[in-house]
């Protein structure tokens, strides 16, 4: 019965909001200025008290994905701690409930449901793989929660209940390919990836774009996740002599691929072939070894070495919190944006109510982002710049190019499907 | 090879049987005939190929060459369970019974009905089964132990149980591999009695080392040596055969 009542209230409040966005905005102004009562900022029964608000962190701590997701957990915790140190959100300290998705998609769905239904959290920061996001998506839509998803991914999705803080495929790919074609005169490409949806979808977009530019794809190849023998494909690459090896290899395969590439005498520091990746962040380089990937180019929105005040403060804080030997990759930075974007949206809405936060989200901008300036698009993805980094032996990227303008996120790119 | 006598009066006729394991001929061009209602004992030193002959007949080992005819039906191409269904029963050297099941269940599983998967699913333990099990159990001296778990039987009782499991199939040819090995003297006597009794209406092939026991039961004896027949005939005859004496006592 109570659930039913909640549901009705929820519906009513949604209608009310739709009816009067203006009044909501006025409320927001008031909310930001004066401490507000819990019932005012939370009409849907979320876990908000006079001085605290609960959020969820949902990543894999165990299982095969734990390797990748650790950085995101650390970034989200850091952001929450910093926000709390600044006085919290609407005067309330953020308390987080961390759940382990255990690299298992139903577990993600199950834990997402627990966070939303049992814990009634106001927002969830989490997921890493597309599969885990796909698994939790129906849960977030059914129980009306808000997910901040940090990973760069294949696009083809746009949910009212998700804010995508990483780049969708076109943002990374188009800028990267334009750049190699323009600056390096690349005309032929060999596409290579791990065999799952992100590399396949990304390569599809890449192929369309390459062909649009009038250039040629000379090979396209996928290997099972975890594959460790790449000598055959390296031979094929040698045979085809592409200008660019476009690699979206992930996980353990990465290490094997780059080590074997180097051992086979393909020297990426030379002009041709050059290697462009969208999947290797500084995190992965630790496993690969800087000396093995030296000279490769990466197209993404963030590198640890970015030279701006925001980033220097962020890297310093991150290392103070999690240790000096830590590296920060693109996804980690995107995860760090999550709590800040949520805070901004809540304060703009003057409420923790999911529907109000959702309405407030588009247009939210963050000038303090380590990557620089980001803004939430109507489609819930971020406007952001794409940068090209050159991998160096010390395991860092040196940024050698950034797009002049923010790239518009386009999760359903016309003409690329 | 030998197709001269396509039809014989013998229950079992083995002709030119050869089997080789990586070049080693365990059974070499063997000819052997079993009459109806005969107790035929095969003896021979270790490695003579006695057990292999039984394995060949029941399909456990495939012949390299030659033929085995049972009631003029060729067995060499049949699968084991088909050979059993033709009426050939085989007892192994070590008692091979289902230790986790009771004596009753052991016998019941051997009862020749419901031998397909769905037959087994729909098998009913009716009066026919019960009385037959009891009858056989009595024969093999186990009628008071029907509900005992087979693992708890003595070694000799296990041997009997296995014989009983064969009897309940009512085979025309029964092959026993060392049926009295490990038995006490009184158990041996009982077994000899049992064998003499069950040979009514069927033939029995026995592989045995115990000469006293062989003397007690054998109608005919075949001596195998290095995969070939050394001597054949009554017990008295083979015992007197100098070749046999040479093999057993010589070297």
């Amino acid at each position, binding site marked *: 019965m109570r659930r039913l009542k909640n549901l009705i209230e929820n519906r009513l409040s949604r209608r009310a909001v739709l009816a009067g966005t203006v009044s909501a905005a006025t409320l927001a102004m008031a909310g930001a200025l004066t401490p507000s009562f819990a019932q005012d900022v939370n009409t849907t029964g979320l876990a908000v008290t006079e001085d605290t608000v609960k959020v969820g962190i949902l990543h894999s701590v165990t299982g095969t994905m734990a390797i990748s997701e650790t950085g995101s957990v650390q970034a989200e915790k850091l952001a929450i701690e910093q926000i709390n140190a600044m006085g919290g959100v609407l005067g309330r300290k953020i308390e987080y409930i961390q759940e382990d998705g255990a690299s298992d998609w139903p577990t993600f769905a199950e834990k997402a449901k627990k966070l939303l239904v049992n814990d009634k959290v106001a927002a969830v920061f989490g997921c890493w793989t597309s599969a885990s996001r796909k698994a939790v998506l129906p849960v977030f839509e059914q129980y009306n929660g808000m997910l901040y998803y940090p990973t760069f991914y294949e696009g083809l999705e746009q949910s009212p209940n998700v804010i995508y803080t990483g780049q969708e495929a076109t943002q990374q790919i188009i800028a990267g390919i334009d750049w190699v074609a323009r600056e390096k005169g690349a005309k032929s490409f060999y596409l290579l990836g791990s065999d799952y949806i992100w590399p396949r979808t990304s390569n599809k977009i890449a192929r369309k774009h390459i062909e649009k530019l009038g250039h040629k794809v000379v090979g396209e190849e996928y290997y099972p996740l975890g594959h460790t023998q790449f000598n055959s494909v390296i031979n094929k690459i040698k*045979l085809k002599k592409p200008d660019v090896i476009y690699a979206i290899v992930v996980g*353990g395969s990465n290490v094997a691929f780059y*080590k074997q590439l180097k051992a086979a*005498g393909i020297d990426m520091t030379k002009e041709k072939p050059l290697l462009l990746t969208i999947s290797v962040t500084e995190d992965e380089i630790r496993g690969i*070894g800087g*000396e093995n990937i030296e000279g490769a180019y990466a197209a993404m929105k963030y590198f640890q070495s970015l030279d701006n005040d925001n980033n220097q403060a962020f890297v310093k804080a991150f290392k103070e919190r999690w240790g000096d030997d830590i590296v920060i990759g693109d996804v980690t930075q995107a995860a760090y944006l999550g709590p800040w974007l949520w805070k901004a949206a809540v304060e703009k809405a003057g409420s923790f109510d999911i529907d109000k936060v959702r309405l407030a989200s588009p247009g939210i901008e963050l000038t303090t982002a380590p990557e620089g300036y980001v803004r939430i698009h109507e489609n819930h993805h971020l406007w952001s710049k794409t940068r090209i980094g050159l991998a160096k032996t010390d395991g860092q990227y040196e940024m050698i190019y950034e797009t002049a303008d923010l790239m518009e996120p386009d999760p359903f790119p016309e003409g690329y499907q | 090879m030998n197709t001269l006598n396509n039809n014989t009066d013998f229950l079992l006729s083995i002709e030119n049987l050869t089997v080789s394991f990586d070049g080693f001929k365990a059974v070499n061009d063997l000819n052997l005939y079993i009459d109806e209602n005969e107790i035929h004992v095969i003896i021979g030193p270790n490695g003579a190929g006695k057990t292999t002959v039984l394995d060949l007949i029941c399909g*456990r080992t495939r012949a390299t060459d030659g033929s085995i005819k049972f009631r003029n039906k060729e067995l060499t191409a049949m699968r084991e369970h088909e050979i059993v269904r033709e009426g050939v029963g085989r007892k192994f050297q070590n008692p091979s019974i289902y230790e986790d099941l009771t004596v009753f269940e052991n016998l019941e599983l051997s009862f020749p009905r419901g031998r397909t998967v769905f037959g087994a699913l729909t098998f009913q333990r009716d009066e026919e089964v019960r009385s037959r099990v009891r009858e056989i159990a009595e024969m093999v001296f186990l009628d008071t132990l029907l509900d005992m778990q087979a693992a708890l039987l003595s070694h000799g009782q296990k041997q009997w149980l296995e014989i009983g499991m064969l009897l309940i199939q009512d085979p025309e040819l029964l092959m026993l591999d060392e049926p009295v090995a490990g038995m006490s003297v009184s158990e041996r006597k009982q077994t000899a009695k049992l064998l003499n009794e069950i040979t009514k209406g069927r033939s029995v092939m026995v592989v045995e080392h115990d000469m006293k026991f062989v003397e007690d039961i054998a109608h005919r004896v075949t001596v195998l040596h290095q995969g070939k027949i050394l001597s054949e005939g009554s017990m008295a005859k083979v015992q007197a055969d100098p070749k046999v004496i040479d093999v057993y006592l010589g070297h």
Partner: protein
Amino acid sequence: MFADYTWTELGSIFAMQGFAGLILFSVFVLMALGLAIIFGQMGVINMAHGEFMILGAYVTYLCSNFVEAYAPSFFGVYFFFAMILAFVAAGSLGALVEWSLIRHLYKRPLDTLLATWGLSLILQQAYRSIFGAREVGVTLPNWLLGSVPLTDIIEIPINGIFVMVLTFFIAIGVYFILFRSRMGMQTRAVVQNRVMAGAVGINTEKVDRHTFALGCGIAGIAGSAFTMIGSTGPTAGQLYIVDTFLIVVFGGAASLLGTIASSFAISQAQSTMEFFLSGSMAKVLTLLTVVGILMLRPQGLFSLKIRR
């Protein structure tokens, strides 16, 4: 697909591809030898084989860090010591595991499968707790990283040559240990007839332990060598397990020669198919072929006819 190339190019590529197949062959042999000893000779299904390999990899990682920090002048040759240490570490752990776990299970091979799977989970978590969830990068001496250019196109990876040479020596070593030494004779005696071997005075427990430790030790060396070509992480070992078991079973479990032959067959099939098909399909087809052949010939490639 070959229309655009000259004969020299094609020749070079086929040479390269042949060489890639040989590297894969060496990798397979190295992976499978330890398991062939444990599974083939002892009948124990060691699902933690991959984790023993990763132990070797982590030992190499520790060595590389240690040498880099304290004895940089030895860095060029540390790899050899690391492999020996990997052998010792994995072998000792193997002996410990045999003593605490495996020896209770010799009569229940399927149960060794479950128990060693449990062991593999424990080892994975232990690696994660000690070394962290991330993959670690093993720094290798520079001379191992490059390649030898033979012609314009043909370049021979040094680490590939290294793995091949290593595999060759280890295979020879295993051959001598199993077939030419007293320990090997005892091992084979125990395998064939445990009771009899015990009766003639062979300490079967000791032989079991040594055999198991030897198999694990070789896995450790393999893991150490694989830092040159693969990744080192807590769960990396799981990637090897299916391939490794299939190789051993395909070769005919009890035959070391069979293991080598099946490594050769599978590696050549896989690298040829990889060249003509896309990666994933090549893998699927290779596995399917192996499974298919095993269904037709369950005893594997090499097996003795045994008189029952």
